[in-house]
């Protein structure tokens, strides 16, 4: 075996090289590193500290965050429901009319209406108009005598439903109000441009004003107020009544009467409602069958 030029020539040379300052230093440093790690876990601490420093920039992933997201999404959804309800409640609270009430509640939304507020809205209506929503006697009983707990108002497509409910959540009275009905209730007596002949439901029951009023005045005097329960809109309207029509359907004991006004060549119709039995008496007179 040939000895290379860099190999030690003697045993002492071997020992000298083995225990050289560099070797001992490397060995000691290595030993310190290893044992200090085993003793003080500095590597774990170092990595841990590094990770703590990057924590905020890391993604929120994993089971615990997923659960958190589901919770957040649930709360978001619930808050959305609550906030919509709160908006509805506020708009209902601020409602001055039944139309405001219906406009404030979207289909599927609901809100509890205070008894006092319902009373307030109800009392703003003219008596004959109020009758169309609920008989005052029935309302008095519901609000003050019956088992009514609260009024539950639900939005439906094209209107609202009012549920008068007792303490067991049972509906004791239900009123369905279509927006058109509400408009009519609120705008009752407001003129509608057009002629009676063009309007549905009056065909064959349109009479010249003179004929109509002649027949009307033939009725006993105590019947006439039931025919024109609220003459105010008619008195307010300018122009001349040329035709009067009787609608072909009775609703809740009332029949609609249409008064066609002419003023400066424009025609407008004003609707009022008369009690069914009074209109029936009038119809007999119109047909010449009355007394």
């Amino acid at each position, binding site marked *: 075996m040939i000895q290379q030029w860099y190999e030690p020539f003697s045993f002492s040379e071997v020992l000298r090289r083995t225990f050289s300052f560099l070797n001992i230093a490397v060995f000691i440093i*290595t030993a310190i590193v290893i044992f200090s790690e085993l003793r003080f876990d500095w590597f774990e601490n170092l990595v841990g500290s590094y990770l703590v420093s990057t924590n905020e920039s890391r993604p929120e992933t994993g089971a615990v965050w997923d659960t958190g997201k589901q919770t957040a999404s649930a709360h978001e959804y619930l808050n959305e429901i609550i906030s919509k309800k709160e908006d509805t409640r506020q708009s209902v609270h601020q409602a001055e009319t039944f139309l405001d009430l219906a406009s404030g509640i979207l289909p599927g939304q609901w809100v509890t209406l205070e008894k006092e507020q319902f009373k307030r809205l109800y009392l703003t209506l003219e008596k004959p108009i109020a009758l169309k929503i609920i008989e005052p006697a029935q309302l008095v009983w519901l609000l003050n005598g019956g088992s009514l707990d609260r009024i539950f108002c639900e939005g439906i497509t094209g209107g609202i439903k009012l549920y008068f409910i007792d303490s067991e959540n049972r509906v004791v009275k239900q009123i369905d109000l279509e927006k058109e009905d509400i408009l009519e209730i609120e705008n009752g007596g407001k003129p509608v441009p057009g002629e009676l002949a063009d309007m549905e439901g009056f065909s064959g029951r349109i009479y010249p004003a003179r004929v109509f009023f002649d027949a009307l005045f033939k009725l006993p005097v105590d019947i006439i107020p039931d025919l024109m329960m609220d003459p105010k809109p008619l008195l307010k309207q300018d122009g001349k009544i040329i035709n009067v029509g009787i609608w072909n359907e009775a609703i809740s004991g009332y029949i609609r009467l249409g008064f066609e006004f002419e003023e400066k060549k424009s025609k407008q119709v004003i609707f009022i409602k008369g009690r069914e039995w009074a209109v029936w008496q009038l119809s007999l007179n119109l047909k010449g069958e009355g007394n």
Partner: protein
Amino acid sequence: MNLFLRVIKLVRFCLFLGLILVSIGMLCGMFLVFYAAKDLPKLPSPLSRIIERPQTQVFASNGQVLITLGERKTIPLNMVSQDFINAILATEDHRFFEHHGVNKLRTLKGLYITLFKSGKVQGASTITQQLAKNLFFSFEKTYQRKFKELLVALQIETSNTKQEILHAYINQIHFGAGAQGVEKASRVFFGKSALDLNLAEAALLAGLPKSPTNYNPYRHYDRAIKRRRVVLKRMAQVGFISDLEAQQAMLSRPALHHEQSDSRTGSYFLDALINDLILKYGEDVVYHGGIKVFATIDTRLQSYARQSLKKGLERLDTMMGIHQEKEDHPQGALVAIDTGSGAVKALVGGRDYYKSEFNRAMNSQRQSGSSFKPFLYYSAFKTLGFHPETIMTDMPVSIPVKGTADWEPKNFNKTFSGDMILKKALINSVNTIAAQIVEKIGPRAVNATAKICGIKSPLKDVYSVALGTSNVTPFEMASAYTVFANLGVRHDPFFFWRVEDAFGRVIFEHIVQEKQVLEPTITYQIVDMMKSVIETGSGRSIRQMGFNRSAAGKTGTTDSYNDAWFTGFTPTLCTSVWTGFDKQKKLVDVNRVGITGGKGAAPIWADFMINALKSEPERDFPIPDDIRFETVDTKTGCNPKEDNETINETIEVLKVPLKPEQQLCVEGEL
């Protein structure tokens, strides 16, 4: 010299190689740390945030909490038995207080075994690593996942104290049976707080997290006890307890708390309610929204329902000669609905929830047999002007059916009784008369009546619908019969009155709305006929069992005896009971005689109703103003006094309710 030199050279080489390898390893390690750190999940701060989760609670009508979804009872460490803490440390990580997230020696040993001993895998996860895994990682076994888990563990250790880590660990760890966290586990398994756990119980609990399903003490008690032995031995080895204490604890067999024995709801009613809630609000809101749900269930009635069904089905077992546990047992379902509101008061969907979660009350669509006949009779009364005194003839019938053989229904007793009034026909459940009626009015009219009453399952427009061949659920039958109980007023059935968010703000409220769907007078006539079913007809076993209140109902038995029904009601409560096998299998007694609704389901109904109504005052069904009663001969439909000068005692008479315009003995009616 040469040899010595060589040895020295080798040692030196190894040292330097080792040094280089360690250096390379450290460099690679650093690189991997930097590389993996980018994808590591963010750690919540403080760590206790992981155990904050809003719980959804469901309350019964009496305010009792029925279930808390996502329940995790968090408790501080000083409220946990020291035995449990010692047991979990000894089992999972006895050097927990010494390491910094990683047990290096155990990891190296585990790595060596996993790499060099084929087929063996040695786990070395510390409690901190387990916490990291449970919080952020899936359970797939990859080195990458392990490495990331290790890094998160290091971060957890750096940013939290050992006490905080242990607190988080014991409060989020899964013990199985729906128990997350030691307090919940302690309450579920032993019905006591975690502070009161003794050594034997604590060791049993500490053994469960390794495999909550395999060691579930409710299902595998002996396995759990065996696992506890390992835990106790470890505790003794580590020095937490003496060998003697371990031996003594091993002898103890802790009694399990049986009130809640599974992660499932344990209730068919709650399953139905939760499904309904999920349909309305989605899973996130139900399981993570922390909502409060006020259910309709009456816990007293629910308990009676469970007991009555259990007792009734055991009675059926005896009748059928089924004694072996392994044999196929008949199943059953019971649904009770408040007639005045539609609120579901009790619902049991099977014999044992823990053996079969299939909710037969809601999901098992079965032929209803003759219990469908009230819909048929109502339709006939309504469309043809028939009434309880109308005469028809029980005789062989053959009804032509397009494209198939004629339909020739038979009576249950295979005999024919000739002329009889319709009240008698319903009391005796005469099939041939039902067939003649459906031929006259058509199946669509019958189905239309059933649908307006609330039957939602698809109904076939076939003649045999008159005999109940369409499939319906007990829930639907109970709901539809409430319309009869209310004299034609329908209330939609529902499971909860109110839903609130975590702050008590109402997000849903059920309003009881009434819909008059059947004509009250005709409905009363049907109710009167159904009352007689209980008095003298196929449901008379109800009276024999001692149920004496005013009630009406109808039995139902399918041709093949596969299904036995009884659906009936008092003025306040409507209950439907179904019994039968899940498979197509006959209900026959030991003498091979078929079991009818009157024998199989009616006794369950009676037993339940006796208990359910015992504290309620007796009430009768209101009689509509325009109803008058006449006593008639069941064969002629005429008043026996008018027919004969003296009442012939052999004549069977029945009282029938009639409308003003309905006359007796009308010429040509026969």
